[in-house]
């Protein structure tokens, strides 16, 4: 069997997988009755519906007549660096403080672009550091550790 429209086919699989996920994990909760629905009732209903929809979409992906059914190439570089930078920010914020995590966020994410220039990135980091201190710490009075753990008193 040949996949005609890969975008549709894989979206169908994705939806179906989500549907199965919710149906399966809803089983540990109480279904209740139609008049007194338990916590599992609505999720099970929707999960089943999603599974069904996913199947329809996937089947259409197998049968559709289309010219540009291919899924575009995934660009892992921007994906990894942008979201990796966000994760780094989240993990570093408590132990490292705002300035360290901000520097990590700016530098790692900048690396996701094809036009990385170290000097510009350093300047940008410094600029954003100052701006964030003024706006969020002094201006809005946000309570977040600024300095790394070992420099805090």
């Amino acid at each position: 069997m040949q996949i005609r429209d890969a975008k549709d086919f894989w979206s169908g699989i994705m939806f179906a997988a989500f549907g199965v996920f919710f149906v399966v994990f809803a089983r540990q909760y109480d279904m209740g009755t139609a008049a007194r629905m338990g916590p599992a009732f609505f999720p099970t209903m929707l999960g089943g519906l999603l599974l069904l929809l996913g199947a329809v979409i996937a089947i259409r992906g197998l049968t559709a007549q289309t010219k540009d059914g291919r899924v575009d190439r995934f660009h892992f570089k921007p994906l990894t660096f942008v979201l990796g930078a966000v994760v780094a920010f989240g993990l570093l914020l408590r132990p490292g403080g705002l300035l360290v995590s901000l520097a990590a966020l700016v530098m790692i994410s900048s690396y996701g672009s094809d036009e990385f220039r170290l000097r510009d990135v350093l300047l940008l980091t410094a600029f954003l550091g100052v701006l964030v201190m003024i706006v969020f710490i002094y201006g809005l009075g946000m309570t977040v550790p600024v300095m790394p753990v070992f420099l805090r008193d």
Partner: protein
Amino acid sequence: MDLIDNLALGFSTALTFANIAYAFAGVLIGTLIGVLPGIGPIATLAMLLPMTYALEPTSALIMLAGIYYGAQYGGSTTAILVNLPGESSSVVTCIDGYQMARRGRAGAALATAALGSFFAGTVGTLILAALALPMVELAFKFGPAEYFSLMALGLIGAVVLASGSLVKAIAMIVLGLLLGLVGTDVNSGVARFNFDVPELADGIGFVAVAMGVFGFAEIIANLEHKGQRQVFTDKVGKLLPTMAEFKEAVPAVLRGTALGSVLGVLPGGGALLAAFAAYTVEKKVTRNPKIPFGQGNIRGVAAPESANNAGAQTSFIPMLTLGIPPNAVMALMVGAMTIHNIQPGPQVMTSNPSLFWGLIASMWIGNLMLVVLNLPLIGIWVQLLKVPYRLLYPAILVFCCIGVYSINNNSFDVLMTAAFGVLGYLFYKLRCEPAPLILGFILGPMMEENLRRAMLLSRGDPTVFFTRPLSLTLLLMAAALIFIVALPQISRTREEAFHEVD
């Protein structure tokens, strides 16, 4: 008269110094972000939402409304100057606006867009104020069955508008509904789908979903196609339209406003549909245009811009009076209200009149500020378009991350946003439009709640949705919508309409 009294109350709330300042800040920042290519109002709102948490509810909503208008207008500016629509509703503006810019009439196009939007916004605000009372009275007749059916209608309406496959859009809604159910179930107190993660007991953060799926995914997508951006900076030209242009634009603005006001109220309607419809109508109405459509006809800017602003305005009606968001932007507003512990719905007007009317009044003020702010500041926006993207996006990320963190002072939310960024990118690659997902996400808990209540009241009899006349009407409307869109003829035209602008 009630209307006058109410508006007076609204203006007295909105015209305090602080609230004017917030409206001003909202419009300014909204435009600032909205001007950046590839970032639409939904992404802008999602990114800036956390900034308003510290404010008191009225000011926060006023600022958010300002951000929304600013973002929308910023999108039009980008559409005209760079031919890059920041959002789907300014896609239409691109067609003729950019051509006007190439003819050296960018200034006139921008001014027409601003003035047309202002006029449309004024009319839209008046309609909103006038319809609010009767709508709220209607809303009090609604039982849980009606609410459930209304939400179903709203969701179906949103699907009709999503470009691309209908089934996929419905699947996105269902997925959104399911994601909305994560967290503690209000009736039984059971924490659902939380996998013993304490942070998930309160549900998935709404900002995390919106910012990840819209904001982050868009940034990554933008990095993929390194744009060859062409800005017509030197040729903005005179701002004022010529007399001939003015005469052509006025009827287009009037038609656009009328169309936009009507379409905005419809569930699923709002800015996008309004802009499309207005452009199509102008094309049909105008015989022998001096400048053909698609080559810089001023009507092609005036009509859709007025329509999308009028629609943006009137789409607040179902959100404010019924508590049901008709589109993704309003879903974000509902999310913002919930965070401030305001349960959107008919009771807001009675229990919190100064917030309700203050918000309406501030919409008009926001529209006025757009004109005052944007026309003189066009130079600055143009400069902003020249800043290379490689410097812009890390800055955007910084503000997003700090914003997400500050909601609950919790790093977990930041990590969730990254996870939804991955999901958003996957959606983008698989051509699954994310707007319906957000709508479903907001409506999920509300729908379940009303479904349960309706079924409890009917003692488990599901026919209750068909035997109550109001509920039946709403469901029939939803069915009719699906039927109409599924007709082969219509679906072909629909595909073409969305294709024309790709």
